[in-house]
């Protein structure tokens, strides 16, 4: 179900901003499904797309029949690549491929005591994650023959993933100098530029999740300096429980009284979800809000495809 709003252009039209799209939302809301669906949609429209995950194990690759993807670039569908961030590989790529200081990399970065420090250094992995996004949109084509029109970031679930966006200012405040300071400034500029960086926030029609989405929106806006481009309401049942009252057919159903009562309370529950969804819509100030119909029991790739179709119709 798609609510048409003032904006007449398709959702994430070709060539439209942003180049990097962060998908935010807490664990369990279907963030990876949304990331995969956006990626699939844009790839089908002809763009070269990369989904960047940061997870213990890649989930999106296996949905498309691939083995779990590591920190390499693997094409899982035509024009759609996936990579799963790993700090080790990011450090190697930065020092060896980008800076071309293999000796420093081997003698300093890989030295056991330094490697251990880097393992637990505050904010380092986050900084390299953002740095890799910057590199992918700037130098990757020249240095590694990698070209992507669009990068979708399946942000980590912890702390909504939004804490990632705090990093440049945190690192900046630490009085960094040298290389790290240069990299930090670049990343901060990239995040603040609406042509470069945007966000979608994923929510569910459930009270606790809706509360969190409403808390998350101003945080994302404050960190990026511009509001999210869209809110996605996953698992919507608004099209199934449309009545505001108990449906008349329930009482005529040729089922036992027990079954009728049970179905009635299930229907009530769906109605409650639908009303929560209306509440969320009425309280959001963002232009594009897309509801994706709930599909219990369907295989993940089918859900991704159906979600991509919903996005294709969205404006």
């Amino acid at each position: 179900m798609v609510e048409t709003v003032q904006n007449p252009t398709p959702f994430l039209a070709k060539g439209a901003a942003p180049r990097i799209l962060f998908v935010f939302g807490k664990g369990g809301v279907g963030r990876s499904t949304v990331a995969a669906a956006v990626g699939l949609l844009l790839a089908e429209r002809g763009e070269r797309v990369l989904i960047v995950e940061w997870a213990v194990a890649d989930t999106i690759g296996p949905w498309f029949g691939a083995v779990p993807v590591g920190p390499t670039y693997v094409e899982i569908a035509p024009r759609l690549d996936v990579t799963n961030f790993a700090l080790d590989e990011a450090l190697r790529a930065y020092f060896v491929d980008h800076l071309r200081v293999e000796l420093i990399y081997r003698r300093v970065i890989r030295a056991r005591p330094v490697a251990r420090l880097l393992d637990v250094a505050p904010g380092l992995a986050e900084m390299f994650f953002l740095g890799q996004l910057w590199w992918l949109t700037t130098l990757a084509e020249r240095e590694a023959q990698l070209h992507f029109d669009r990068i979708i970031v399946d942000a980590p679930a912890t702390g909504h993933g939004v804490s990632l966006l705090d990093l440049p200012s945190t690192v900046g405040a630490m009085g960094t100098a040298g290389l790290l300071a240069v990299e930090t400034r670049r990343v901060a500029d990239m995040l603040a530029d609406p042509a470069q960086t945007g966000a979608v926030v994923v929510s569910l029609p459930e009270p606790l999740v809706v509360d969190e989405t409403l808390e998350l929106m101003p945080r994302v806006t404050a960190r990026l300096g511009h509001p999210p481009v869209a809110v996605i309401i996953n698992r919507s049942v608004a099209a199934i429980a449309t009545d505001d009252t108990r449906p008349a057919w329930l009482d005529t159903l040729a089922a036992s009284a027990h079954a009728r009562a049970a179905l009635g309370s299930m229907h009530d529950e769906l109605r409650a979800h639908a009303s929560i969804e209306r509440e969320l819509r009425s309280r959001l100030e963002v232009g594009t809000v897309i509801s994706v119909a709930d599909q219990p029991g369907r295989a993940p790739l089918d859900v991704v495809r159906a979600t991509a179709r919903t996005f294709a119709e969205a404006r």
Partner: protein
Amino acid sequence: MTPRLHVLLGAGGVGKTTLAAGYALALSTAGHRVGLLGIDPSRRLQDALGVELADLDTQIPGARAVRAAIVQPHQALQRWVREACTDRGALDRLEQNPFFTALGDRLATATDVLAAARIVEWVERDPALTDLVVDTAPGVSAIDFLRSPRHIEALVKSRLIRWLRAIVRTGDEQLGGLRVGARRVVGALAGIAGARMVGDLADFFVLVRAPLERMLARVERARQWLQHADTSLLLVTSPRDTGAVGAAELASALRAEGLAPRAVIVNRMWPPELAAELASIAIPSNADAFIAYARAQLEAQAAVLAAVETWAPMIVALPSRPILIEARRPALVELGLALSRALSPAIPGLRSAS
């Protein structure tokens, strides 16, 4: 005597936090003295408990035997530093240190380590506690601390830290006192991040040594506590997770650490007996969308139960509850009672309220 530990684990959105709160309230009505440690409780849940939760445990109004707290990295860190460090000047220097602030931010994403240290701290502060209910971060990351303390420990004892400490002790910013190899490494780090940052880092490691070591000792005790026969690891799953993938992944991560779940809780089930009736009756055409949805839902949950049955030692199925009242107090207690009734036969010494 060690209190019983009840740890709820599961993917995001399966209802862990609400279950943990209900379960703690229910255990207290059976006469247990209960602690509830949460990670990220929503506003609505705190309203239901009738109290604003903080880093240190607070009394839940109307449930005298329950105290609850949430994991708050910066506050916990500050408390641990104060408890381990008596030198006022050093304490001030540490609180000004940018790495100390950053460590708090870092720990904010490492709730697993914090929660492990917090549960041990809780028992140190309240030895009379009989039960501690712990809500965890979503997914497998909740048990990262079973592996990561070894990394942290290795770092604390590493050569680099010794070198950095030597710089602080001697005030030797020219690095003249270090051996050539050490000078090269520290010098290169200063080139990458700036000399001031390396100095702050060195200072940080000297100041934070004692509290960090104490935290690691607590995390180690928590690891042992998880192995205890009275500890219950409870995997929560939604009846919608195809193949119960999230719960299975957690179970195998636990097995890799020599741990096993006590039970799998399938939360928010639709009445399973509806499936047979829906298959046998005529459906009015204006009910099609809803009935098709109901059938799909019932099939999905049957598949989850079938998947879980192949490996779970015990399954607790909890019915779906109206979402708008789920987080209210009476509903919370009722939910917790259903869970404690199902679990009490399997947990040594656990009484269940009638």
